[in-house]
């Protein structure tokens, strides 16, 4: 570990402490302990909550069809989950029960959930074991585009309010569903039987009911039959506002109550203006520079390493300011199994040249023009650091052309296809609402999924399977930290650039709105004014 990295690490720890404090001050009530709040009667206060969101929804309400973060946020209002995981920095793995009341590991391949009684879906149908069975078995099918599941599952209905998650047939431990349960929204069994219904309108058990879509605004109202009691906020609006400056201006002028994905300069403006609370937290998202590993030149590991050594991650953090934090491996610092991998490639032009020569392109000679694709409008500062990385690579003789695409166009070029995805490198983050690391590393680096990189590597597959099949949580953590993460750094199918710090700003009169590290929200006890 170089001196430089140590410094970053210290900075990061300091930051963690700061942001932890910040988050704690903002969310003083232990609002996720649902049992505690179960009987409290909520007085209605009249103002709606208007959330200016950075990402548009897909128009298809079936949660298994997308990986759209905006829609995950929307789902956190409308749908219910077996558990919720606040992932607070001081206790990142604490689980709170929501639709479930209890989880028991029966054996390595069986996890039992006891379910809450008296919960109903928005269409009036009571919630029960059948719904969990339908949702999990449907969502885990390999053809579902969202692919959050580690593999297929069978669910056994023990009684009306007890289910058993069974994974023996598919050869991986059921314990993985412990954390995943906080990330998988529960659909009604009827909607699963009729997916067109699930696609045409959302029907969950959450605190807010979907009312209508009005242009780019998604309107929800308080669910009177919510099991914790009707929320205080009568109406929530998810407004898609694509431009960060517009989001900031709208917040300042009082048109929105809450907004997300702010950049450091805008945060300065908001702080200078006064009257707003900031919520900044290290998120579950790492941003990566993904290589198209299935085609030249990045099918050669030396090329990938050459690029990794050409990138000055300190400089990136300078550009990002408070929006980014140091990351030492392929998952975010708040994820289970995170570790600072020893020997993470630091900025070193000599090493870069060494690897370039090994790859057969000394000083970059002989390389074709490489396309580096990035997006604008959603992630903070992508264009700025995109230009920076491009300049750094050009300095080393690697001929890179930056393509800055509008979000929609970028999304369509994101994923791997037959013969390798478009371009040679692409910028993207990966953000999931659970500390579960497999949601990132298995999704992207296992040959059964290989989402963006298209990498097929027997060593990585073996390590990922070994980690997934570990007999206990402790051993799994050990394998992740000492084998999987170092292996990924060594193979470098993507360069983890930095961990994202999510910055939300909200008007001071918004109280008790909890924002998860992936941006999802809990507003059931929130109030305005």
């Amino acid at each position, binding site marked *: 570990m170089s001196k430089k990295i140590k410094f970053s690490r210290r900075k990061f720890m300091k930051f963690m402490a700061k942001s932890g404090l910040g988050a704690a001050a903002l969310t003083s009530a232990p609002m996720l302990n649902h049992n505690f709040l179960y009987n409290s009667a909520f007085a209605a206060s009249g103002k709606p909550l208007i959330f200016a969101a950075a*990402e*548009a*929804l*897909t*128009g*298809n309400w079936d949660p298994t*069809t*997308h*990986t*759209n*973060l*905006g829609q995950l946020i929307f789902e956190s209002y409308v749908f219910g989950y077996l558990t919720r995981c606040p992932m607070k920095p001081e206790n990142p793995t604490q689980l709170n029960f929501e639709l479930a009341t209890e989880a028991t590991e029966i054996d390595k391949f069986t996890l039992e959930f006891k379910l809450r009684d008296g919960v109903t879906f928005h269409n009036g149908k009571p919630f029960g074991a059948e719904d969990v069975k339908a949702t999990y078995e449907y969502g885990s099918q390999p053809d579902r*585009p969202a692919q959050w599941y580690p593999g297929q599952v069978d669910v056994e209905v023990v009684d009306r309010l007890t289910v058993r998650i069974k994974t023996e047939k598919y050869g991986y431990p059921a314990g993985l569903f412990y954390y995943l349960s906080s990330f998988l929204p529960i659909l009604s069994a009827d909607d699963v039987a009729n*997916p*067109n219904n699930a*696609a*045409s309108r959302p029907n969950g058990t959450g605190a807010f009911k979907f009312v*209508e*879509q009005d*242009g*780019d605004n*998604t309107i929800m109202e308080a669910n009177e039959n919510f099991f914790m009691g009707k929320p205080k906020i009568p109406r929530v609006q998810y407004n*898609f*506002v694509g*431009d960060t400056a*517009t989001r900031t*201006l*709208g917040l*300042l*002028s009082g*048109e929105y109550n809450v907004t997300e994905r702010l950049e450091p300069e805008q945060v300065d403006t908001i702080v200078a203006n006064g009257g707003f609370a900031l919520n900044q937290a290290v998120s579950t998202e790492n941003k990566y520079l993904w290589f198209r590993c299935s085609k030249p030149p990045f099918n050669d590991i030396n090329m990938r390493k050459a690029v990794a050594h050409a990138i000055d991650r300190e400089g990136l953090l300078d550009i990002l300011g408070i929006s980014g934090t140091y990351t030492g491996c392929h998952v975010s610092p708040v994820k289970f199994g995170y570790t600072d991998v020893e020997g993470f490639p630091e900025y070193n032009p000599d090493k870069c040249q060494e690897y370039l020569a090994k790859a057969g392109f000394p000083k970059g000679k002989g390389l074709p023009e490489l396309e580096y694709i990035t997006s604008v409008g959603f992630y903070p500062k992508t264009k700025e650091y995109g230009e920076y990385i491009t300049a750094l690579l050009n300095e080393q003789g690697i001929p890179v052309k930056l393509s800055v695409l*509008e*979000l*929609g*166009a970028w*999304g*369509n*070029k*994101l*994923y791997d*296809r*037959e013969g390798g995805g478009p371009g040679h490198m692409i910028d993207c983050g990966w953000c999931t609402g659970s500390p579960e690391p497999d949601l990132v590393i298995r999704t992207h680096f296992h040959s059964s999924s290989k989402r963006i990189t298209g990498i097929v590597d027997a060593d990585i597959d073996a390590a990922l399977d070994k980690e997934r099949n570990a007999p206990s949580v402790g051993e799994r953590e050990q394998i992740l930290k000492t084998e999987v993460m170092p292996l990924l750094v060594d193979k470098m199918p993507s360069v983890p650039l930095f961990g994202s710090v999510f910055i939300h700003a909200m008007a001071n009169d918004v109280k008790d709105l909890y924002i998860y590290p992936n941006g999802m929200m809990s507003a059931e006890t929130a109030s305005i004014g």
Partner: protein
Amino acid sequence: MHLAGQFVRRILQGVVVVLITTFLIFSILRIVPGDPVRLIVGGMAPDNLVEEIAQKMGLRDPIPVQFGRYLSQVVQGDLGNSYQRPKNGMMGQGGDFNANMDVEMAEVSDLILERLPYTLQLAGLALLISLIISFPLGISAGLKPKGFMSKIAFFISSIFVSIPNFWLGIVLALFITIKLGLLPSIGYQNFAYTILPAIVLAVETCPFIIRTISVSFAEISQEYFIKSGKVRGLTRNGVIYRHTLRNASIPLLNLLGIQLSTLLGGVIVVEYIFDYPGLGQLTIYAVLQRDFPLIQGIAMVTSALYVGLNIAVDLITYSIDPRLES
């Protein structure tokens, strides 16, 4: 009888122009890179699915065949359905896989009609503002071509024509909306949100209007009936308002006809900057999302507006001064 024949001929010509326009845009969209199907099904869909859906939608047929099909639809009053916007929802984004989506898509005509009033309000106010600025300047410059006001008009026109609309929009939003808090301008809540964008548009159109007014006043004030007016003992102002204004309105109307597409072009940029929910903003997103039916619909409507306005202008011109029939 003669007028009616003229009118019918103009209408027929107009229809031909709109057809050519539509065909131009229709072909351009299909020739330049950017596959709408890829955007419809999302980034995760395999290439063969993209191909399959494209064929099902008829997007792989020869362009004239596609155009014929489109026209037969349009003749029945159907502009088609958007590729990207569901009837009651927003557009999909990111790497979503919507191929199995069974959601009804919004009708292009509805989308356009929904946005058109906002754009007309914006364009109307902009025109009003620029007329208010241009008339005094243009008239005084026209009546005394070597006078001080003429120089002022020249300088103001040169400066206004040099300011890029998007830059002015940003700077005004910064100072008037944010720093001073005088006028709201981002998004749309009520009429006040139209004022700032309209000012930006007005600055863009002013130079042309000032020029037209001053030139026509200079010309007309030379003409005989002004002199004869003096002979008859009318005051100078009386003459201006009685005769000149009426005659100057002809080139002005002509200018409006020609400038309409410039005005609409400006609307696109201004609406984008101010997040104003009009036709211009719809256009930008439609193009970025390769929403073919929507772009075609917008192009056809704009072109029809242009042609229609120009025919109307000719008719009005004729009724003001039958000598000018051409």
